[in-house]
C-alpha cells in the first residue's frame, strides 16, 4: 500500500485509487481499417516492464479523475505524476533508477536481504 499524490486531491492512500494499466496506448481511430492482429494488440496486449512503467491511475474513491504516473515496478516507487494533458516525462529523467529489462534493484526488491 503506497501513497499516490492525486494531482487534484493531494497525497492519499493507494486504496483510494484504481490502476488503469499502461498509459499512452491510443485507441485506434479507425478500428475497421486495421488488421485483426493490430486490433488484438490494442485490446489485449500491454507492456509489462520490470522497471520504469508509464501507467494510468484513477482516484476512484475520491475525485474520479484519471492521471498518469511513472512508477518503478521493481520497487513500486512512484517517480512522477502528471496530468493527462501534460507531456510525458522523458525516460532519460529516470535513468538513475532504470533497472529494465530484468535486473533486480539492489534496494527495495523483494529478493535481497543481505548487502553484497
Amino acid at each position, binding site marked *: 500500500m503506497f501513497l499516490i499524490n492525486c494531482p487534484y486531491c493531494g497525497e*492519499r492512500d493507494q486504496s483510494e485509487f484504481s490502476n488503469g494499466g499502461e498509459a499512452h496506448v491510443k485507441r485506434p481511430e479507425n478500428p475497421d481499417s486495421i488488421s485483426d492482429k493490430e486490433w488484438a494488440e490494442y485490446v489485449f496486449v500491454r507492456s509489462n516492464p520490470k522497471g520504469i512503467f508509464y501507467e494510468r491511475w484513477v482516484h476512484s474513491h475520491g475525485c474520479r479523475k484519471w492521471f498518469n504516473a511513472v512508477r518503478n515496478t521493481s520497487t513500486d516507487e512512484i517517480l512522477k505524476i502528471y496530468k493527462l494533458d501534460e507531456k510525458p516525462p522523458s525516460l532519460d529523467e529516470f535513468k538513475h533508477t532504470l533497472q529494465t529489462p530484468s535486473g533486480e534493484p539492489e534496494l527495495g526488491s523483494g529478493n535481497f536481504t543481505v548487502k553484497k
Partner: protein
Amino acid sequence: MKEIFSIRGLDIFQKNFQQVVLRSKGGDKFNEIVNKETSLLPPSSNLAITNNENFLFAKQSFDQWNLFYLKEKKHEEVLKFISTVNSDEEILASDYSYGQVYFEISGEKRNYYLNKLTHFDLREKKFPVFTMAQTLIAKIDCSVYNLKDKYLITCNSSFEEYFRERLLDSVNV
C-alpha cells in the same frame, strides 16, 4: 435536524440539506448563473469552500462543484434552478437533494473517533479549515467538509443506516 448522539467528546447531528452537483469548466457565465441563485461566487481554488447563511459551496475538482442549500427550499425551486443551469449546454447540474445523507460531526475527540474509520489525514496541516475532501470512511465513499468547529460528512442515502451504525460503533467499542 436530528441528534444522533453526544458522548465522550463526540457530537453527531444528522441534517437535511438540499444539494446540487454542478459540472462545468467554470468561467464568467457559470459564475453569473450561480451567483444569481446563491449570492456566492463558486470557489475557484480546488477543494475550497465558501459559504453564506443560506448556502455552502465547495469545489470538489477542477470541473465539479457541490452546492448545499442550508435552509430548505421547496423542491420545485431547487429544480427550477437546476433547469435554468441546464439550459446552458456546457454545464450539467444534477439534483442530489434527497439521495444523500448529511452528518455534522463536532466535539474535541472527533478526529480520534473518525480515525477509527478512515485512513484520511485529518490533521489541520493536511486538511485545512474550509476545504473539502472525498475519501473512504468505513469503507464507503464519502465527502468531508472541514467547517472549522465541525465536519460535514455526506454519503449516499442507501448507506444511511450502515454509516450511522459505524459512527456509533466507533464510540461504543
